[in-house]
């Protein structure tokens, strides 16, 4: 079996978990295995049906009073119990804040090898192989794991979810997880929502990023206005914009920020330093808006507009509004 850790936020399954489940189901099929989904802690009963429809043959629910709020220690202990019993070939998690926190803890607990932030998986010679960017995408490593289980985190917004299969059914199994309160030395006590509940650049399908050309924090308003018109869109930034204090560091794309793979990346007033290009070159479609026709960003862009962003961005927003009105 290929097990997938399913992450929920506000009671709903995250899109990245459906993506990981889709990839697990495809690789499991290649290997003649089934995909299983794991929900840890309290979760709505209706979620099982969604998971069956999206590729899971089995849904495991791990329950314990100690699994109320997320803790890496508690969740890893619960998952180890299931892994010891089911003996999966691999466990997939999303490379999200939670997945990246939990997966290495689980791998160490199981003495298992782990691959982080995969952007491709395949079966070659009967084994799973994982490809992942290194140096924020300046190079790619293809790796194999010599352990059972294998642990991998999958980058959000790269893999296609499966299905949905209408009328899909499967088996639901609820297990009491042995997680003593004393085994949990740290836990989340509060979730602090930022203003506006923005989509994170790591998960966004569209990113509109600003750089030094914005000349100050105010012009990020032009980018936010355009981003607000598109579904699952986020505002990103170059390192120089972040280091100038124009926008929070969580928006930074590049080698010391986030490495992203959205469907559409619009670089506004970004010249294209090597460490920025590394972080966004895996985007499916890149648009560059810059007044300098020699800017390196144009060398990686599918579409470019050479012009003043302070004129182009309002025009672009107006065109997007027209498109939506149609």
């Amino acid at each position, binding site marked *: 079996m290929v097990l997938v850790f399913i992450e929920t936020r506000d009671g709903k399954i995250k899109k990245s978990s459906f993506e990981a489940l889709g990839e697990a189901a495809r690789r499991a099929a290649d290997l003649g295995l089934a995909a299983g989904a794991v929900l840890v802690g309290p979760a709505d009963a209706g979620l099982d049906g969604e998971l069956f429809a999206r590729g899971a043959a089995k849904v495991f629910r791990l329950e314990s009073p100690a699994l109320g709020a997320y803790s*890496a220690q508690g969740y890893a202990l619960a998952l180890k119990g299931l892994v010891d019993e089911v003996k999966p070939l691999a466990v997939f998690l999303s490379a999200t804040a939670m997945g*990246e926190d939990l997966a*290495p803890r689980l791998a160490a607990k199981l003495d298992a090898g782990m691959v982080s932030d995969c952007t491709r998986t395949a079966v070659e010679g009967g084994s799973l192989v994982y490809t992942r960017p290194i140096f924020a995408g300046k190079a790619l490593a293809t790796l194999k794991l010599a352990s059972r289980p294998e642990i991998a985190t999958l980058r959000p917004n790269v893999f296609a979810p499966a299905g949905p299969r209408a009328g899909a059914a499967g088996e639901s199994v609820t297990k009491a997880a042995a997680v003593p309160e004393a085994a949990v030395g740290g836990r989340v006590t509060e979730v602090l929502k930022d203003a506006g509940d923005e989509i994170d650049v790591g998960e966004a399908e569209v990113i509109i990023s600003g750089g030094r050309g914005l000349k100050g924090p105010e012009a990020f308003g032009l980018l936010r206005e355009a981003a607000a018109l598109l579904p699952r869109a986020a505002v990103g930034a170059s390192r120089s914009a972040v280091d100038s204090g124009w926008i929070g560091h969580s928006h930074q794309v590049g080698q010391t920020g986030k490495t992203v793979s959205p469907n559409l990346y619009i670089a506004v007033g970004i010249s294209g330093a090597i460490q920025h290009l590394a972080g966004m070159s895996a985007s499916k479609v890149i648009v560059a808006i810059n007044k300098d026709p020699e800017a390196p960003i144009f060398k990686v862009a599918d579409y470019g507009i050479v012009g003043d962003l302070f004129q182009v961005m309002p025009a*672009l927003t107006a065109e997007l509004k027209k498109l939506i009105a149609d």
Partner: protein
Amino acid sequence: MEIIVFVKRVPDTESKIRVNPETRSVVEEGLNFIISPFDEFALEEALRLREAKTGKVTVLSVGPDEASVILKKCLAMGADEAVLVKDDARETYDGLRTAKLIAAAVKARFPKPDLLLFGKQSVGADNAQVPAMVAELLGLPQANVAVKLEIEGSKAVVRREIEGAAEKVELALPAVVSAQKGLNEPRYETLKGIMAAKKKVIPVVTPAELGFAGDALGPRVEIVKIETPAARQAGKIVPGAPEEAARTLVGLLRSEAKVI
């Protein structure tokens, strides 16, 4: 407080990366090496905590002899002591291997640490595995990707980044925390610090001295291939005045690229 900070020697983020497909590794020749940027946030936080609460800050690196250069820099920034766990292995991408070396070194040399600080990931391998693995191997609680850290008596209160929000995590000390950009603004080394660092001796520990023999550290990760991604081709420049260019672009994104 006894604080240990873990630092890694990595290629400068401005570096062009070349790979050698035959050795399945990154070509190190000609690269400029630095302390991994996220590790600097970890060290700065340790120094601030020591200044506020007294104690000792030790930096530890797993790597070749050349890693003593970044350890000297940490001493010059203000760390009290440094230790090198000498490991000549080429990058394995196996976080668990490094975590085992670190956990063994902590057990051997630091029987009662209060806080273990890491960068959230090393730039380069970009694994983000080692902090949580060390926490697990030592049975300690963890908070990764910290943008705020406060010590309140026997616990650490951490604000950590999650998608579009932040989590407050409370940890019983001793604990493992990994640093994200935004935690603080790292200081520069001072001339006085550089002079003092020159006189300090950095003890070297080998894996054998930590009890690893034979293939106890045999990697669980096999490198099949290291390659550079296919270069993107420059596309088309959309001509015209801003309004016209914007109109054409939206049309292309809609009908040609099909991304909006």
